[in-house]
């Protein structure tokens, strides 16, 4: 939580009640927000199903792409509790930053993460081999620790086939086909609510060899 001057909230503060929509996916956006209290649910409609992208807590920022341009929102943000947030835009940002450079530092870190995540995602998409892409998605998830390590090399991912397809830039059917092939090779186990990679090191070698071939 950032230790900000209380007068900041008077100038830039906004309150959302529990359940309020802060913004909707595809809506043009020119504001971005820093949460002071309460939680914000980020979600997206993918394939007719609403999926949770993240639940943000105080001190976290969202909608920050608005500082780049009035790009459409890439997700819907809904207040999970009563949310107090500071709302910024291009116009008030430099004024605000003069007195509170730590906010700008937070934004700098957010951009750092966004760039890293986008580049990592891009690396997956540069692989021509579909199975290598799927395997690389698991490597990416392991790096970002969205997984539970069971025993050495065996990792459980609380994710779905559709999600894997989404990250790999392929259809759910193709993702399923690639995963089924891994299942037949006993490299992966599929469950309704999770996917288990039996030896992540094997996937590291597999992806690395495919990258070298391409």
């Amino acid at each position, binding site marked *: 939580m950032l230790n900000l001057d209380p007068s900041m909230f008077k100038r830039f503060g*906004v*309150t*959302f*009640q*529990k*359940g*309020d*929509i*802060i*913004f*909707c*996916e*595809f*809506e*043009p956006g020119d*504001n971005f927000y820093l949460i002071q209290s309460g939680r914000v649910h980020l979600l997206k*409609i993918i394939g*007719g*199903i*609403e*999926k949770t992208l993240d639940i943000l807590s105080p001190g976290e920022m969202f909608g920050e*792409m608005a*500082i*780049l*341009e009035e790009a*459409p929102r890439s997700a*819907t943000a*809904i*207040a999970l509790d009563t949310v107090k947030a500071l*709302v910024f835009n291009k116009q008030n940002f*430099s004024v605000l*930053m*003069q007195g509170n*450079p*730590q906010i*700008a*530092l937070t*934004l*700098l*870190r957010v*951009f*750092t*993460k*966004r*760039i*890293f995540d*986008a*580049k990592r*995602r*891009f*690396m997956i*998409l*540069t692989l021509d081999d579909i199975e290598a892409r799927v395997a690389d998605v698991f490597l990416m998830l392991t790096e970002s620790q969205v997984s539970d390590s069971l025993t050495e090399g065996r990792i459980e991912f609380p994710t*779905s*086939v559709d999600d894997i397809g989404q990250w790999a*830039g392929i*259809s759910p*059917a193709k993702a*399923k086909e690639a995963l089924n092939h891994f299942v037949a090779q006993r490299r992966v186990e599929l469950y*309704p609510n999770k996917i288990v990679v039996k030896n992540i090191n094997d996937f590291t070698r597999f992806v690395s060899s495919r990258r070298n071939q391409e």
Partner: protein
Amino acid sequence: MPKAIQYRPNSVIFFQGDASDNVYILNAGTVVMTYNDIETGQEIRELVKTNEFFGVRSALGRYARDETAMVLAPTTVVAFTVPEFEQLCTQHTHVILQMLKVFSTQLRRINLQLENILSTEDKKDPEEGLYTSGEFYLKNKRYSEALYAFKQYLVYYPSGKFASQAVEKAKQCVDFYEKYGPGTPVATGPAAATPTGATMAPADDSGGDMSDTAKEYYEGVSMMSQQQYAEAFDVFMKVENEGDSEFAPKALFDAGRCQASQKDYDGAIKTLSALLEKYPKHPDIADALLLIGTSHQAKGDTTRAGALYKKILTIAEEGEPVYRKTKKALAALQR
């Protein structure tokens, strides 16, 4: 304490893949940053300008270096630890602004590259996307969210291609909202403009005058939206068995959706076929057929899937989301 370091030509300040702990500023000399373009793999070399920071992104994010920094001529740099750099930033905010500009340019570029590499098939233009978000929420009986999306659509696209439908659907949302309650209240913040002039009933978390069957059904919808498909399926089947003329067909349709989401394609086909048989005038008949078609396709039966897609195109109206989805599915099948 930041320290000045001198390098001889051909020294390497850091290699790609090294752990990142310092941020550098070039005081004098020549430093070249080398990295591979993520799209083409081509090696890119960029000279660092005097008084320019380098190595910031990887150090701030504690990621491995994604560039190699090599010295070409006698050079002096100042190395900052991350806390020292952050301290410097708080005293000289123009440094942050400068870095924000660099980072935002990089982010914009990489997002464009990502968009280019991804299939454009699923891309929606923002106008259509906002409208279909409203439709999604309306269909899932999330009236306050639906109303918000339709209102925002009318704020940004008052003469847009879906404007008249958005007005109608916003009115529908208000009617349903008053009848069944909101689920969640609509934003009262600055973004919640009301261009249609539609007035909202007061938020009522109790669900208003909803019947027990309706409450059960919406509980199922809520479970489904949280991907608790097995639990939602049980709730929907219970609602269907209760035989309520309004909720039984809706529940049967959603039960089929739950099965398809769980990849139980045989189950989904059976449930949705029962829906067609029992409720042939159900408004979601085309959607049910589409789901049966995609289930057949997922099972590898492309002939049946194709036949169903063609049938849907004869009963759905052009411009309806189900029509567009079916066209897309059929095109993908024929590719």
